[in-house]
């Protein structure tokens, strides 16, 4: 962590700024001083090229395949007599891999094994359903990135936002669509304020938002757990389980394609959020200030921009986007009631979505769709092939690691290095 009391990491000696601008075109230590520790991340997130992205996905899938092969019983059995009957090995390997990815495809895009189109296309709607909250939360993390803030607190924000959205939906007694709207807004406001704590602490005391948001994940988790196990707060009557009542119909996100499909309005809300965030970042003065503070807080402050206020605003908006994802979950995907697992890993997935999407709204849309497909397909892979769904986590995190290190990917594929800027 960089020093919380001194947001400007200055490893230089006590001297004041250098009187001589040396001729070396790039002085990394100088850059770091000028732009803060996140500068390189932000740079590598916001620039970079598509080839590296595609190759990263390819590499990650490759590693995932090796894992699947190495742990497959038949493949290992046939490997023991590889030289005697290599054919067996390759057949087994091919079956394991094609089985896995076939199931992934059938689970996420189009099920080729059924005849009627409606059933066959259902996986795609599942992908979109999973993508909705990923996109919304990814926007929350990405927007904070652009303002130079590292929002690792997606999990806590999801939990707090989901708990409030659920609480309002269960208790407010309003007609549709009013109840739905109020519930979603409640979740967004609650999550925004929760994230805002990190913003305020950073602005007021310089506390590092990475640490604060990580810690608030746990505080939020235990708070929600407490509410869920306390009668009169969120716990359903006549139970001792940490679980709330189901969400009433008036508070649910309506299904988009009828009851045969799970896809609900939440996905559309996520798309709206993409447009709004795009406008905010690229066309609004507030977004301009977010980016200015994110790229160089010193220059922003010197130019009269209130850096602390900008941090707070960025965290409020980022949190409310994560809150939208929480509403998506509680009011749309899992309507059986609030529980402590409502974030379903989305809080952390959002980080990978934002990184893969390079913190641009359109990139996050694409990354959210891809990881939504992984999720949908992962479950079908587990069901039909017995491959634990955790493989999706492995592939997902590997993609992000490779994306973050373009020189590594270039080295592996022997691509020419991009010209230094």
């Amino acid at each position, binding site marked *: 962590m960089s020093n919380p009391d001194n947001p400007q990491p200055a490893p*230089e*000696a*006590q*001297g*004041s*700024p*250098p*009187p*001589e*601008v*040396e*001729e*070396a*075109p*790039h002085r990394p230590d*100088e*850059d770091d*001083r*000028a*732009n803060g520790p996140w500068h390189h991340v*932000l*740079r590598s997130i*916001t620039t970079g090229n598509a080839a590296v992205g595609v190759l990263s996905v390819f590499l990650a899938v490759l590693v995932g395949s090796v894992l699947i092969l190495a742990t497959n019983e038949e493949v290992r059995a046939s490997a023991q007599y590889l030289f005697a009957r290599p054919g067996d090995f390759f057949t087994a390997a091919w079956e394991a891999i094609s089985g896995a990815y076939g199931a992934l495809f059938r689970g996420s895009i189009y099920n080729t094994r059924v005849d009627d189109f409606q059933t066959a296309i259902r996986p795609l709607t599942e992908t979109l359903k999973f993508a909705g909250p990923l996109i919304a939360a990814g926007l929350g993390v990405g927007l904070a990135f652009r303002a130079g803030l590292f929002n690792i607190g997606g999990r806590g924000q999801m939990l707090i936002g989901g708990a409030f959205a659920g609480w309002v939906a269960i208790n407010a007694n309003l007609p549709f669509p009013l109840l739905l709207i109020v519930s979603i807004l409640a979740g967004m406001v609650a999550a925004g304020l929760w994230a805002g704590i990190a913003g305020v602490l950073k602005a007021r005391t310089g506390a590092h938002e990475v640490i604060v948001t990580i810690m608030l994940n746990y505080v939020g988790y235990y708070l929600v757990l407490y509410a869920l196990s306390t009668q009169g707060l969120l716990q359903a009557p006549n139970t001792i389980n940490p679980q709330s009542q189901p969400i009433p119909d008036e508070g649910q996100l309506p299904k988009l394609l009828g009851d045969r499909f799970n896809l609900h309005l939440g996905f559309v809300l996520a798309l709206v959020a993409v447009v709004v965030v795009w406008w905010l970042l690229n*066309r*609004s*003065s*507030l977004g*301009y*200030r977010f*980016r*200015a503070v994110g*790229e*160089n807080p*010193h*220059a*922003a*402050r*010197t*130019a*009269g*921009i*209130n850096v602390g206020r900008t941090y707070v605003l960025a965290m409020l908006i980022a949190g409310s986007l994560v809150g939208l994802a929480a509403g998506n979950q509680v009011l749309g995907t899992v309507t059986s009631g609030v529980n402590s697992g409502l974030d379903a890993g989305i809080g952390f997935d959002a980080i990978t979505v934002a990184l893969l999407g390079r913190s641009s709204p359109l990139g996050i849309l694409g990354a959210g769709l891809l990881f939504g497909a992984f999720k949908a397909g992962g479950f079908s892979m587990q069901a039909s092939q017995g491959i634990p769904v955790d493989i999706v986590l492995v592939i997902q995190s590997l993609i992000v690691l490779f994306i973050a290190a373009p020189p590594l990917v270039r080295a592996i594929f022997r691509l020419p290095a991009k010209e*230094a*800027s």
Partner: protein
Amino acid sequence: MQLALRNVTKRFGSLVANDRISLTVDSGEIHCLLGENGAGKSTLMNVLYGLYQADEGEIVLDGEVQHFAGPGDAMAAGIGMVHQHFMLIPVFTVAENVMLGHEETGFAGSLDLEAARAKVREISARFGFHVDPDAVVEDLPVGVQQRVEIIKALSRDAKVLVFDEPTAVLTPQETDELMQIMRQLRESGTAIVFITHKLREVREVADRITVIRLGKVVGEAEPTASNAELAALMVGRPVELTVRKDTPKLGDEALVVSGLTVTDKDGLVHLNDLSFSIRAGEVLAVAGVQGNGQTELTEALVGLQDHVHGSIRLDGRELVGRSVRQVLEAGVGFIPEDRQVDGLVGAFSIAENLMLDRSFSAPFVRGGSLQLRERDEFARQKLAEYDVRAPGITTPVERLSGGNQQKVVVARELSRDLRLLVAAQPTRGVDVGSIEFIHQQIVATRDAGVPVLVVSTELDEVVALADRIMVLYRGRIVGIVPADTPREVLGLMMTGERPAGAVA
């Protein structure tokens, strides 16, 4: 020991920082390497010290070609360096800093601090330094830190000592002492390379002078050469050290500062009870050695300092206690001393940087929405007007040269309706052509009736721009004197002495 560089060439991408540079230094000799900012001096020394690898050419010590893979090799060969930015660990003690890298150890690698202390004391005694081996470096004054750097090099038995711009942070008095130390080292047989761009220092201690410009050796000179000759060699043409300007048309007192005191969060007083005023159409230039409160003064004027007492009135309106935005909106233009840190957002385009301090209201923002057409039109216009050499308005400013970056800052600040201009080190690290242009702009602003405060650590710049000169020393005003005050007097004032006749 004799050190020789032969045809050393170092490139960064397409840029040739050092182009076939050769020079030799012998024991008991001070060899000055003179050149403008950015001429390639520091790069050359980093090659010598093993921090960079030369693309061509060789380093020869006593006839043997050396191959330095890193500073460790260079040190082992007897080369020591006193870095421009001290290479000291701030939280370590003097002894720890001196021993770092060649520690003497006892049981299981445990540090023998006593040996290091003894070494510090021994070298201190030899040169008359008073350095406490157990003092923590960050608590020491800059001048003493530099001595720690020298002790560090000597403790490794350096035979060749490189001083890289050592006087930038020193008072004239400390500079004199450093010169004395260098002579002393020369007497004891050390070969010294002295890198600087300050002519006076060169002529004072140098035995030989090599002048570098744009990465090439452009000539050698004797210490007897005149300032004008050396300066001409250094910048490649006879330089005009003065700025053409008419006598000022003074208006009313526009900026009135009284009782200004600035402290930091640790309670250190950086500015102590400053009172002065600037009239409309006047340039008040602030002189002083770096670190005597200039940074705090300019930042306090703009509202960037947190603990400010006293009063700053601009045209009768109090500025103390206002936010930076309110100060800027009151008509204060600010050219910060470090454009890359405080003046520009490197990754932003020229157009985006030109609206940096106008992101709240018209003309570039309406209803919370950016007005891209107005902004880009404005940017194109300023690009032409200020002669910014760039492919276009969408070029990120980090791709521009220092001079062009500074022009972007100047263009942004001067294109607002100003009632006060505060310019801190307006031409630091800027090429000669841009310096002249920026100076003209500052003078034009003055002539338009705006009060101007210029801070510079280069006495030449102060003298060239000033209508009056204010000298700061340790956060206090030593005196405010006319622009034609002799340099010797100014130099003396920069050490805190107040000559007769100076008005406080």
